């Protein structure tokens, strides 16, 4: 079927999912999300103040009305202002996205590049000692908790050895990329790279077993060409989609790094929002990330189709 129709249908299918997400989050957080009025009211607040604040935040309205407002916010994309700081939510996320991506994209690129390279290598020498050694090493690497990596890494590499700044963030893109992001990214890689290596290895191995590889060899192509052109081109299909669909999760997943290295990213923002019961931000975060996830999946499918002529848009 043609692309347009496919897109329309997929976008249409997103609606019920989005609805589920919205309802779940809305009711969970309305039910147990805590009442921000009490912090906002300050040390000496009296019930009248509390009531006044609740009124201003609109949390004294009936649930269905609040839900309606929520839905309108999603449609208009305007989630109002943060309860904690009166700042427009959209502005907050705009300022948070950059740093998150700054961690995210290098991490993803490095991860994919190294993982693919290693995967190809070990697949080429599958069953050899190199293969087993690398696999074992990666297993050990991913068996250590990220928390430990961060604590020790920050202490050793930043403090004792002083190779990196201990924490921080600047306004200068290159400075961030070359100074502040380096250690967090590397520490992040420690845990994230091993699983991808293992996964991609299986992808590559699956392809190496295929008949067309035998054909390519029978044509007298060099092993290198067989691997880098015929095998990789096929293995790239699951790899690319895998990477793509992993992205949104990472967006919020880096909160540990963000907290320890004082990086103003989204994950940290969400934790802050939850601690302050800053509902507008929680709502926005959920919706944004949910959207991102679903779009990433859609994009993944499109890419899949584009990379693999056999796949038909369904």
């Amino acid at each position, binding site marked *: 079927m043609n692309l347009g129709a496919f897109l329309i249908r997929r976008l249409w299918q997103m609606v019920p999912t989005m609805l589920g997400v919205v309802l779940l989050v809305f009711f969970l957080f309305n039910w147990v999300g*805590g009442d921000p009025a009490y*912090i906002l009211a300050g040390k000496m607040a009296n019930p009248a103040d509390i009531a006044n604040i609740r009124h201003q935040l609109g949390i004294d309205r009936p649930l269905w009305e609040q839900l309606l407002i929520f839905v309108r916010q999603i449609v208009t994309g305007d989630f109002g202002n943060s309860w904690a700081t009166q700042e427009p939510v959209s502005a907050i996320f705009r300022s948070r996205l950059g740093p998150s991506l700054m961690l995210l994209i290098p991490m993803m690129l490095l991860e994919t590049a190294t993982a693919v390279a290693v995967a190809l290598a070990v697949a080429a020498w599958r069953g050899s000692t190199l293969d087993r050694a690398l696999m074992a090493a990666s297993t050990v690497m991913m068996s250590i908790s990220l928390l430990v990596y961060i604590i020790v890494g920050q202490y050793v590499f930043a403090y004792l050895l002083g190779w990196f700044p201990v924490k921080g963030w600047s306004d200068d893109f290159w400075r961030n990329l070359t100074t502040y992001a380096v250690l967090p990214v590397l520490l992040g890689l420690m845990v994230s790279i091993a699983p991808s290596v293992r996964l991609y290895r299986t992808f590559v191995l699956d392809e190496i077993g295929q008949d067309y590889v035998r054909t390519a060899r029978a044509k007298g192509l060099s092993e290198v060409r067989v691997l880098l052109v015929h095998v990789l081109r096929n293995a790239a299909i699951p790899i690319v989609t895998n990477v793509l669909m992993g992205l949104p999760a990472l967006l919020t997943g880096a909160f540990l790094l963000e907290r320890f290295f004082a990086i103003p990213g989204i994950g940290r923002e969400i934790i802050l929002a939850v601690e302050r019961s800053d509902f507008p931000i929680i709502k926005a975060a959920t919706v944004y990330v949910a959207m991102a996830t679903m779009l990433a999946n859609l994009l993944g499918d499109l890419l899949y189709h584009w990379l693999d002529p056999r796949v038909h848009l369904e």
Partner: protein
Amino acid sequence: MINHMGRLLFILLLAVPLTGVAAAPEKVLHLALSAAETGFDPVMTSDLNTASIEQQLFESLLTYDYLARPAKLVPRLAADMPTVTDHGRTWVFRLKHGVYFAPDPVFKGAKREVVAQDVIYTLMRFMDPKNRSPYKFLVEGKIIGLDELAAAARRSGHFDYDAKIPGLEALDRYTLRVRLKTTDYNFAHAMAQPMYGIVAREVIEAYAGDTASHPVGTGPYHLVRWVRSSRMVLERNPYFRHETWNFDPGNDPDSQHIAALMRGKTIPQIDRIDIQVIEEPQSAWLSFGKGELDMVGLAGQFAPLALQGDHLRSKYAARGIRLDRISDPSIAYYFINQQDPVLGGMSPEKIALRRAIFMAQNDEEMIRVIHKGQAVRNAYPIPAGVAGADPDYRSVLDYNPELANRLLDQTGYARGPDGYRRMPDGSPLAVRYTSSLSSQDRELDEMMKKALDRLSIRFESEKLKFPDMLRAERQCRVQIRLSAWIADYPDGDNFMQLWYGPHTHENNASCYQDPQWDRLYERTLTLPDSPQRNVLYHQLARMLELKGVTKVSTTHIRNVLSQPWVLGFKAHPILPSVWAYLDIDTARAPRE
């Protein structure tokens, strides 16, 4: 694509060693906040971190002397101290002339002077329901006519700032008269709060809805960059009036040393203040160690690193790092909800139970193990450095598990077959301790568990997010909790009101309503800081103990470390920040 990524990897790895950018000749102060700020509209903020910045952006009528101890009120925007007449009911403030707001587009390039009307507007804002100000309690119910205005606004939904009220009158361009409903000697303290920094009406109205990110004040600094809950950069306010550093050091050697260094310098000396938010104390401490931060508040758990006993460890002293160590004007106190079905009530066995629980708390151990010695045992509700404090006060609730157990045996809390005590009527007994999710609080949970184990009373833990905890507390649903209070202003009343019956559902978290106590308290309100008042305070404090309402446990010690190139720093008990009074020795400071 692979070799492309390879190149990127290469860049990143090469990039590792080289840090820092072009050197700047100016004096820059690098600081860290332990928690995110909450926006810079003074009327809406309440937390210390934000206040420390607002202290530099805005100016209140009065402030506290930098060096004087105990804290002493001095004029800031006011030309001199207010004249107070008819038993502290009428206050007249005269403003300094030629004080200008920091430049802002709203003023269209013109210099905008501060006048009495601005003060009136500022005070009125606190009562505007729209602003839901956390600090309006300092003026609420005090100024004649203001509360009526607020009531009207609540009805109409619109606060009439142009209204003339008897409580707030501008006698001339620079003179303001405030009329209070009742005697209140603490009004001066209210006018010294950073939140009561003066703002310009046109600015507030121009940025209506987003005032939080457009702070325009008269302070020595103005905000030039703000990455929310991450980074704030202050630069000296070009329009700041000429002020020179001359504070009276008294006879304290440190102060004299500082005065010698700083006297005669114009305020402020430092051109730029670069502030970052660092939640993880580990990160903050490590980056101070590397000289990335110029000053750091030493988190309790790291004290042993920097301190030997109460002195700086030699390796830091050798580096010229300075330690400022003062006891906070704060108390940490256990309270028990007097309305709780299990623990509440005034029958002897209930009182005994509560006092036993209090007596089982080992404050010394808490100070040693959790606060790493960075706190002192203080049993009196009013901490040192606050008017009405009594360092010699002795508690009846000091750690004494044996007596506590005896008391319980005596009043019929027999141990059941499972080894845990039962209520006198034989029904099961468990104490629910409420705390937040932070790791610090986890240690406190362990303390409480140990304490209750000593009494063989069953321990239950209730973990709540901070807002939920506050709500539970205000609704008298908490059973027992270790709470803390830090002085808004250095007067005992700011503490004693914590148990005032009418403040139940506000900040009388123990929900203690005792006519006898309340009457005594009300009498203290009519008195200025004086021996008579102290007598009453002692009775109030003792009554809280005897009835097992509360146990004041400890007072924290604030340790501030500053790098050798930071000049003129002395920790102040009340002022949230004193950056304007500092200087930096650029010769010693590391080049950026």
